[in-house]
C-alpha cells in the first residue's frame, strides 16, 4: 500500500470520525453558537453548545464540511467537551492548539488529562504544517462560541 506510512497522521480513529462525525447536528437548545471558516480551503463549520446555569457544558454538536482532519477534530471535540466547565474548555483549547503545533502537550495534565488523551491521535498533524489549521478550526470556533461574540472564527 502506497500510504502505509501516513497512518501516523490518519490513525483509524481519525478516519472513523472523519467518515462518520459524531454529534453532527444542530442543537435546538444551544446557548452558545459560532461559525468557523477557513476561507483558503473552503472548510466551514457551525458549533452549538448548551451550557448549564452552573457553567458546565451539557451538550455540544456541530455541522459543516471539511477534510477528514477538521471533521475528526470537531467530532472528537464535541465528545470531550461534555461535562467540562467553560474555563476547562478554554484551557483544553489552548492545550490542543499547542499539541497540534508542537506534537507535545505540557499542559495536558490534571483535570483535562482524560480529554486530551482522547484527542492525542490528532497530535500527528504537527508534522504537516499546512494541515495544522484543519485540526484547529473547531477549537478556534469553540473560543468564539464561548465568547459568544457572534464573530466568525478562522484558523488562517
Amino acid at each position, binding site marked *: 500500500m*502506497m*500510504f502505509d506510512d501516513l497512518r501516523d497522521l490518519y490513525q483509524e480513529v481519525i478516519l472513523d470520525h472523519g467518515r462518520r462525525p459524531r454529534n453532527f447536528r444542530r442543537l435546538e437548545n444551544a446557548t452558545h453558537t459560532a461559525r468557523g471558516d477557513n476561507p483558503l480551503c473552503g472548510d466551514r463549520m457551525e458549533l452549538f453548545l448548551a451550557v448549564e446555569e452552573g457553567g458546565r457544558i451539557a451538550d455540544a454538536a456541530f455541522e459543516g464540511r471539511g*477534510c477528514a482532519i477538521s471533521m475528526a477534530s470537531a467530532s472528537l471535540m464535541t465528545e470531550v467537551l461534555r461535562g467540562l466547565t467553560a474555563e476547562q474548555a478554554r484551557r483544553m483549547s489552548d492545550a490542543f492548539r499547542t499539541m497540534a503545533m508542537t506534537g507535545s502537550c505540557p499542559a495536558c495534565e490534571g483535570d483535562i488529562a482524560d480529554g486530551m488523551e482522547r484527542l492525542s491521535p490528532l497530535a500527528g498533524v504537527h508534522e504537516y504544517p499546512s494541515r495544522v489549521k484543519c485540526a484547529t478550526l473547531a477549537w478556534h470556533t469553540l473560543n468564539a462560541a464561548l465568547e459568544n461574540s457572534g464573530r466568525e472564527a478562522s484558523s488562517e
Partner: protein
Amino acid sequence: MVEAAGVTDSLPAPALDVERIRADFPILSTSHRGRPLVFLDSGASAQKPRQVIRAMSRMMEEAYANVHRGAYHLSECATAAYEAARAACARFLNAPRAEDIVFTANSTMAINLVAHSFGRGMLRPGQAVVVSEMEHHANLVPWQMLRDAHGVELRICRITDAGELDLDHLRDLLADGRVGLVAVTHMSNVLGTVTPAGAIARLAHEAGARVLFDGSQAAVHRRVDVQAIDADFYCFTGHKLYGPTGIGVLYARSELLAAMPPFLGGGDMIASVTLERATWADPPAKFEAGTPPIIEAVGLHAAIDYVESIGMAAIEAHEHGLVQHALAVLPRVPGLTLYGRARDRGGVFAFALEGVHAHDLATLLDRAGIAVRAGRHCAEPLHARLGAEAGTCRASFGLYTRAAEIDYLAEALHSARRFFG
C-alpha cells in the same frame, strides 16, 4: 481555429527530449518525504533550469549595479542587460516595440497597474469593465476595487458548462456600448480552458472597448502574438515561465502607455522634479518607479532564451500530448471528477475524488512524492460555479512533465481511494 487563440506556430513541431530537459532542472532529481519528486504544480510556479540560475548568479558575480543611474561601466552593463531583457520580452510576445513592455513584480501587479492607471485615468464613471466567471482573483479583485473607488460597473461574463467563455453572453454584455474594457484570462488556471483571444478582442473592439488578457498560464504553454490577437494589454509572470519570482510583464499598446497616468510615484519614473511637482518620464520608465527587478529581469531573459531554444511549438506539442494522455488515463480512476471540458485546453487539471477531501488527497499524494495544489486556486467564484466549494486538487504540467508521471498520479489516486474507502 488556432489563430483565434493567439497561436501562430503552424509548422510541425520538433520532438522534445524530456529527459534532456529534466537534466537542466536540478530540483527534479531531488527526493521529498523519501520519494522522488513528481512535480505537478507548475501552474502555481514552475521550477528553474540551470540556465536561469546561472544567469542570475553570473549577473550578481560579474555585472551587477543599479540601472539608469551610474555613469560608470558596470552600471552601463547592468542597464544594457536590463533593457536587453525588455527587448526579449517584446520579441517573445511579438510586441511592436521594446518600449511597449513594462516590468512589474508579477501579473497581479500588472493588472493592478492597468486598473489604476487605465481604469482611473481613462475610464469614466458609468462605463463598465467585463471579466469572466473563471478569473483568478488577480483579475477580479482589482476590478472590484476600481468599481468601488471609481464608480465603474463590473459585469461578469458567464462560462458554459464545458468551461468555455460564453461568447454569446459576452456579446450581450457589450451591446449597450458602455463597456470600456474586457479583462479575461487567456487560459484558466483551474479548467485549463484556452480562450479565443482573437475573437474576444474583435468583439470588444467592435463595441469600442479595450481588451486585457491575463496570460499568466497561456504564455507558458503557447506562442503568444499580441499583434495577431490584437490585444490592448497582455500580462504574464516570470516565475511560471521557468524564471524567477519578483518579475512580471505588462505589454500595452504604445498610445495607451503614453496616455495613461503613472501608477507608483518615485525615482526613475520622472523627467524632472521640483519640491512642488514632477513631470513624467516617457513609457515604459513612467511605470517603473524605484529600482526595478534587475537580477530578475536577467533571469527572465534567460528563461525566455531557454524556452525559445526548445521552441514554443515543441513545448505546445509536448503538452498537448500530456493533455491527451491525462484525458485518457485520469477518467479511468473510479470516483474521479475532472473539471473542464473545453475543446481547446492546456495542461491544467482540477479534480475531485469521491469521498476524499481535496486537502486529505493532497497530503496523501504528497506522501507519494507528488506535489499538487489543493484548495480553490485563487478562484473562489469559479469553484462556486462548479459546485466545488470545498475545493479541488489541481495537477498542472510543465515542459519537463513525463507521461509516466501522469500514470503514477492515476495509480496514487487509486490507492488514495482505497485508503479512505
